[in-house]
C-alpha cells in the first residue's frame, strides 16, 4: 500500500553521490569574501565558472545550455548537497532562477542560444530591474518608459532595489511601452539591457550593513534592440507573472539552504555549551527546516503530476522568510555580545534574512493572498 514514498530513486541517489563528491573536492576551504563587495563578486563569478566547467552551475537546464536536464526532484537533491557542503552563495541566482525560466517559456531560440550559455558560466551576471521608487509592492504602477525607435526601444526612467546591479553586467525588467493602455497592467514590455550601455547610470545602494547589495539605475534613452525584447511588446506583465510561476515559488529558496543553516545552528549551540535559553528556538529551527523540506517535496510531487500550485507559494514565502529570520536571530542571541559584530558569517546571514519578509512581495501582501485565494475570505481594503 505505501504509495507515499520519501526515498529517492537509485539514479537520484547516484546523482547525489556524484554531486557530493564533486563538492567535497571543489568547495573552497576558506569562505569567499561577501559577494556584495567588488572583491567578493569577482571571486563568486570565478566560482560560477568552476561550477560550470563540470556542469554543476545550472543542473536543471538542458544540456545544450550547460545543464544536466535534472528534474525538480534532482534539483532539490543538488541543493541539499550544495548547501550542506558549505558552498558559496550563487551570484548568478537572479538570472538563473528569474530570467532563464522566462526565456525558456517566452524567449526565442536565438535569445536562449545567445543569453543562456554565458549566464551559466558566470561570464554574464544578471541583475533584476523590477522596482521603481514609487512602485514597491505595487508593480502595476511602474512608470519607466520604453519608447519605440528604429530597430528597438529607448528606455527612460529610474529603477531601484536592483539586486546585484552594483557589479553585474546586464539587467532585465518591465517598462511601460504604451502609456495609453486602458489598465495599468497592460502596455508593459519585458526587456533585457546592458548595464554598461550608453545612458545607464548605476548608483550602488548600501544595505543596512553598508554593503552595496543593490543599486539605483538611471536610464536616459538607453537603446535596446528588438532582439532583446522577450515575448510580445505590451505583454510584459503577463509574461512576468505567468512564467513558471508555480515552480518559482518552489525554487526561490531551496530547502537545502535552511537544512544547512539549521545544521550550523545546532553546531553553534553545541559549541556554546548547549545553553538552555536557546534550546526551544534551536529545536524549532531544526523542525522548521524539516517541515519546509517536506512541504517542498509535497509541492514538487504535485507539480510533477501537473497540478498548479498558485497561491501556495504565498504560505511558502511567509514560512521560509520567518524561519530564516528566527534562525538567524537565535544564532545572534547565542553569540551574545559578539552577535553585534558585523564581520561574522552569522551577522551577514542575519542582515540578509531581515530582507526576507520585505522582498518578493512583502509578507503582508502574501497574507492578503493567502486570505483571499486560499481561505476565500472577502477582499478587504487591506
Amino acid at each position, binding site marked *: 500500500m505505501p504509495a507515499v514514498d520519501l526515498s529517492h530513486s537509485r539514479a537520484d541517489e547516484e546523482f547525489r553521490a556524484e554531486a557530493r563528491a564533486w563538492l567535497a573536492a571543489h568547495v573552497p576551504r576558506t569562505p569567499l569574501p561577501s559577494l556584495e563587495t567588488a572583491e567578493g563578486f569577482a571571486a563568486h563569478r570565478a566560482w560560477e565558472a568552476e561550477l560550470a566547467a563540470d556542469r554543476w552551475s545550472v543542473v536543471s537546464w538542458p544540456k545544450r545550455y550547460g545543464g544536466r536536464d535534472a528534474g525538480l526532484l534532482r534539483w532539490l537533491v543538488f541543493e541539499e548537497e550544495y548547501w550542506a557542503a558549505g558552498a558559496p552563495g550563487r551570484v548568478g541566482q537572479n538570472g538563473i532562477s528569474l530570467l532563464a525560466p522566462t526565456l525558456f517559456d517566452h524567449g526565442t531560440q536565438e535569445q536562449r542560444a545567445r543569453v543562456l550559455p554565458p549566464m551559466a558560466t558566470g561570464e554574464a551576471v544578471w541583475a533584476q530591474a523590477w522596482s521603481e521608487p514609487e512602485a514597491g509592492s505595487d508593480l502595476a504602477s511602474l512608470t519607466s518608459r520604453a519608447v519605440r525607435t528604429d530597430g528597438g526601444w529607448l528606455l527612460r526612467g529610474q529603477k531601484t532595489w536592483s539586486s546585484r546591479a552594483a557589479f553585474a553586467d546586464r539587467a532585465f525588467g518591465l517598462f511601460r511601452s504604451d502609456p495609453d493602455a486602458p489598465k495599468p497592467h497592460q502596455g508593459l514590455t519585458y526587456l533585457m539591457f546592458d548595464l554598461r550601455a550608453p545612458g545607464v547610470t548605476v548608483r550602488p545602494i548600501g544595505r543596512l550593513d553598508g554593503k552595496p547589495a543593490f543599486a539605483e539605475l538611471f536610464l536616459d534613452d538607453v537603446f535596446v534592440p528588438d532582439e532583446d525584447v522577450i515575448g510580445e511588446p505590451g505583454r510584459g506583465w503577463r509574461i512576468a507573472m505567468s512564467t513558471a510561476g508555480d515552480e518559482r515559488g518552489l525554487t526561490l529558496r531551496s530547502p537545502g539552504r535552511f537544512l544547512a543553516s539549521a545544521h550550523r545552528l545546532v553546531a553553534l549551540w553545541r559549541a556554546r555549551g548547549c545553553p538552555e535559553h536557546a534550546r526551544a528556538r534551536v529545536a524549532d529551527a531544526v523542525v522548521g527546516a524539516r517541515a519546509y523540506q517536506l512541504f517542498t517535496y509535497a509541492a514538487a510531487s504535485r507539480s510533477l503530476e501537473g497540478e498548479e500550485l498558485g497561491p501556495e507559494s504565498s504560505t511558502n514565502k*511567509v514560512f521560509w522568510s520567518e524561519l530564516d529570520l528566527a534562525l538567524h536571530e537565535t544564532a545572534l542571541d547565542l553569540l551574545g555580545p559578539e552577535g553585534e559584530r558585523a564581520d561574522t558569517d552569522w551577522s551577514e546571514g542575519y542582515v540578509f534574512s531581515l530582507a526576507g519578509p520585505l522582498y518578493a512581495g512583502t509578507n503582508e501582501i502574501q497574507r492578503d493572498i493567502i486570505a483571499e485565494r486560499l481561505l476565500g475570505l472577502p477582499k478587504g481594503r487591506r
Partner: protein
Amino acid sequence: MRFLLDAEQRAFTGSLHAMLSAAGTPAVIRDWSRGDPARGRALWSRIAEAGVFGLAVPEDHGGLGRHPVELALAFVELGRHAVPGPLVETVAAAVLLQDLPSAKRFLPGLVAGTDLATVATPLGHALTTTPAPTEPAPDTGPPPTAPTRDPDPARPRLAADTAAARYLAPGPDRAPGTDPAAPQLALDADAATLRLVLTADGLRVATAAAGPPRRSLDPARRLTPLTPDGELLTPDPPRERALTWARLAIAAQALGVGLALLDRTVAYVRQRTQFGVPIGSFQAVRHRLADARTALEFARPLVLGAAVSPRPADVAAAKLMACEAAYTTARAALQLHGAIGYTAEYDLSLWLTKARALRTAWGTPEECREAVLDDALKGHDAPRRPAGPVGEAGP
C-alpha cells in the same frame, strides 16, 4: 520519491470524513462528556469497521498489517471531527500487546472495535517510578519505507530512543512537586474495556477504574485513575514503539483538530458582520487566519513524513509542530469568534479545548523538543566547513 497520497488513500480519508460528518459528532461528544458512552461506542464500532484500528495490528492478529501512513490519515479525520474516546490509547495498547504470547486474547477485540483500550499515560507524571534505562529501548520495527533524511543508515538511533525511554519511565526526581504515590490517570478508563498500566515491573492490567474521572479542560477527556491490580502481561513491554505510534496518532489528530478550527472560523468570519461588513474583511482577521493556515500547512507534511518513516525524533517533531499549529489556530479561533467562542454550548468549544489538551498528552512540547535535539546532536558531525554565508539571492 512521491510525497503525495494515492487515489486509494484519498478514497479512504474521504469515506471516513463522510461517515463522521453524517454521525453528527458534537452530540456524541456531549454525551460522552457526561459519562454516557452509548453513542460513542456505536461510532467507535463504525470507525473500527472502517479498518482504523487494524492499521496498527499485524495481519496474524486480525489486523491489516502496520500501516502508519493510513493510520495517520485516519487520525487526521478523527481529529477533524473531534471524535471522543481513547483512540490514541487504543493504538498504543495494540502496539504494547502485539508481540505478547497472549496477544490474540486482546487484539481481535481492539481491531473489531468491540473493545476500547486505555493506557495510563504520564498525566501527573506518575506513570512509573523506574529510572530511565541507559540501554537503547527496543527497536521500533523496520520502517515501511527507507528513511531519506539521514544519508548514513548505520547511524545509531540512540538519542531519541533515550529521550523516549525517559519519557515513559520518568525517574522520581523528574517532576518535583508531584506525588509519586498518586493513582495513575488514564484517558476514559471508565468507558474502556481493556485498562493497561505501565509500571516499574512491566505492563499490567487494571481490573476497574479506581475512582471517578477527574475533570480535564477538554470535557470529552475523562481522566480516570487506575490501579495496576491485575495480571502482569509482560515485564518488558515495547514502551518506545508504543510511544512512537501514540505520538504519531496524536500529531495527526491535532492536525485534524486544527484544520477543523480553521474551517469553522473561516466560515464564521465570512458571515459575521460588525460595523456593517463581514469581519473577515478586516485585515487583522485575515492575517491572523493566514498565519494559522500557514502553520497548519507546514505541520501537515511533517505528520505525513513521520508516518512514512516513523523515527522517534521525526515523530516528536510532528507532534510538536502539529500541536503548536492546532493551538495557534485555537487561539485565533477563540479571538475571532469573540464571546460566543468562549461558551461551552457552542460547538467550537469541543475543538478548542481539545487543541489545548493534546499539546501535553503523550509528550509536552519541551519533551518533544528534547527528542528532536538529542537526535540532532547525536547525528551531528562537525559541519564540513566551519561556516559560510547562507544566503545571497535577492532581495
